[in-house]
């Protein structure tokens, strides 16, 4: 079994602004049902976290900018770690991920442990 990082990306501009409590609850349910399905297969290593949209980017020569998030289409919104026998199996797990329905994508990367 190998660990794989799932990186969730989406275009923040397409996210509905000021979602109602019902919408937020429905979104939380979709995520929990999906990640719960991975856990039920005993393939979840770490549920991961969401990331807040604002951030900083540090470049050479001490150049610090506010996060590039508003300009780019694909902003990292969260991550999880799963385990699977192969990258194909890990990729299979991403089916039904709620970020896909919202127009985003999931990047699957094998973790090369130090």
């Amino acid at each position: 079994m190998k660990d794989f990082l799932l990186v969730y990306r989406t275009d923040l501009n397409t996210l509905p602004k000021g979602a109602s409590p019902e919408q937020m609850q429905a979104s939380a349910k979709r995520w929990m049902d999906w990640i719960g399905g991975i856990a039920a297969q005993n393939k979840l290593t770490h549920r991961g976290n969401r990331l807040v949209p604002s951030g900083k980017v540090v470049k050479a020569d001490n150049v610090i900018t506010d996060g590039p998030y508003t300009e780019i289409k694909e902003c990292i919104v969260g991550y999880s770690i799963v385990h699977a026998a192969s990258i194909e199996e890990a990729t299979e797990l991403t089916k039904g991920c709620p970020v896909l329905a919202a127009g985003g994508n999931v990047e699957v990367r094998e973790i090369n442990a130090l």
Partner: protein
Amino acid sequence: MTALIPHLFRTEYRKIVSVLCKLFGIEYIEIAEDIVSDTFLLASELWGLKGLPENPTAWLYTVAKNKTRDYLRRHSLFAQTISKEIKSHSDISEEIEIDLSSKNINDSQLAMIFVVCHPCNPAEARIGLALNLLCGFGVDEIAHAFLTNKTVIYKRLQRAKEKLRTEKIEIEQPTLSEIEERLSTVLMVLYLLFNEGYYSSNQDVTLRKDICLEAMRLTCLLIENEQTNKPFVNALFSLMCFQSSRFDARHNPQGETILYQDQDTSLWNQDLIAKGEYFMDQASEGDKFSKYHLEAGIAYWHTIKTDTIEKWENILQLYNQLLLIEYSPIAALNRTYALSRANGKPEAIVEAEKIQLPDNHLYHSLLGELYTDIDNTKAISHFEKALELAKSTANKSLIAGKILECRRKHITCP
């Protein structure tokens, strides 16, 4: 009288053993057990001849105290070894106070819980030790409960006691800083002990109920003590209350299982349900939550018989969270069942096919259940596989019933 001695053995043996163990140290656990066994032997001989003493419990305590003093007098070297710890003076046997007050009994039992549940022994051995030393079950009863023979249990207990001796586990309450960590291993044992009684395939319903009640008594002991009265202990107790509220409804007089949906709710114990709610409330203090909180929540929703979307949606989300904390095949199966009730069978079938527990009879029972009315041919083939894998006769007859039901449906509506 014939009924009284086994009863007193069950309730008093463990108390006196705990007090003596705490006095002597775990290295001398056998001496403590021998003294108490001798006391009961004498009781059964004398009481048979002369009739019952006025206060049988007090009689047992006095005799146990005298036997302990005699032992210390005859083995002065041993008395000196243990006296170093209790800092006694010249005439040790007279000086050593054998305190069988209810306070010291409770303190000693509490301290013994931590010894018995010490992680130096494997889980199975800890459950056996708990039944033996904390619940006063004899080797025969434990063997009966585990559906195995006496020799296996006897050896298991001896090995476990030897391990406690060689590891020199101190009989004392852990310090405040250790408590959280040590408590979680204790709770795991009490949780397994309860489940042993609740889910065992043993047909002896009385014995199973006794085991559950003992697990609850020990958990209660932790709640009564200020230092161990933590939210997750209350959560575990709440779970035990909710589960045991259905105890009398789960079996017919022959000891056969009655499934949840077929139970007579008037047999559900409302006092225990109310107790469960009270302790769940107590458990909600603080900001930490444990798997016991989640399981208590699931058990709470099961005390409401009426099926609503809200009920199954809550159960599903609690199982989702439980699986994020800790995977277990049974949680995965139950989560998938809850998914079928909350989100519908087609989605649950897709998820069930993914969880892959082909050697588990419950897995095939679940798939059989999900395919019923959707694809009865598949349902029958899964139920048949479950029948092949199930071990207990009770399970087999339940599954056989499901197959018949499906066949009937298959004929009318293939």
